[in-house]
């Protein structure tokens, strides 16, 4: 076996690692992109609880107003942080996916990583689409 082949076998394992990173980063990008919707859903649920109890929830539960305000503030700051973190997750995800495609295609052994290569491309495209979509929604 030539030293080039040995190097490629090592590099392919790095490709596998980058595939894992791109998978996790895509999931995190998806999650952070949907955080504003989760926040809106959370608010809707709280408002629904208030409406369904015709406001008596404020009397029935001690300090419901405080809980309402505090939890809304926490969710708001969480959403803000998630939206700040999203481009970083997306950037790392796309870079890892591209590296995974490049490195996995260097395989010298008979096993071909077709599924992983295709999935990496899907992850990269999906991540870019999520970022563009979330930017459009924000605008």
């Amino acid at each position: 076996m030539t030293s080039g082949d040995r190097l490629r076998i090592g590099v392919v394992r790095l490709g596998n690692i980058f595939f894992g990173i791109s998978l996790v980063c895509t999931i995190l990008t998806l999650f952070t992109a949907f955080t504003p919707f989760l926040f809106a859903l959370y608010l809707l649920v709280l408002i629904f609880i208030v409406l369904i109890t015709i406001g008596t929830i404020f009397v029935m539960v001690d300090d419901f107003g405080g809980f309402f305000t505090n939890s809304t503030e926490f969710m708001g700051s969480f959403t803000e942080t998630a939206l700040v973190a999203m481009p970083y997750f997306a950037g790392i995800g796309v870079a890892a996916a591209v590296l995974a495609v490049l490195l996995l295609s260097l395989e010298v052994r008979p096993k071909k990583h077709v599924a992983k290569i295709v999935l990496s491309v899907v992850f990269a495209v999906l991540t870019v689409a999520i970022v563009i979509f979330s930017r459009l929604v924000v605008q």
Partner: protein
Amino acid sequence: MSRIKLSIKGAAGVSPLATIDDQKVKLRKNSFGNLEGNFEATEGSVLKIYTWEIISSPLWLLWEFVFFVVSVFGIFDWGRGKYLREIAFEVVLHPRGDDTIVATVLREKGEGSPALGLSCATETEIRENEYVNTAKLKKRRKIVNWLRFVAWLCIIGCAIAIIANFF
């Protein structure tokens, strides 16, 4: 010059490489999961079938360090060490015409135990047929696992120190 068809059975997860007179034989997986390839051989052609693990490289510690760092302390190193064995198989062929060579990967993986079973009409002269470096690879894997464990202890210690300092 004889046309030889090489079929390697039971190679799932092993992914061996094959050469004929130091020229690579292109192997493809068929619908049954066996590896198949074609080559031309003459009297005295040497067929080699072998596998290689990154951990048997002279730079194995450096490689493992790179994998550990890039995979964020081993978190993303999912496909690590499923199969820790190396095959060394070398046979001299004396073909008298076109033939099919069927090589079956044997399950016994101990050091020095035969790696492949050969079945063909061609006259062969087996030079080498064994699992090699098994003990060495296991020892190295043990060292790597211990180093990872120590590294994780250090990481957790640092994290606790940083958190304690922060609060």
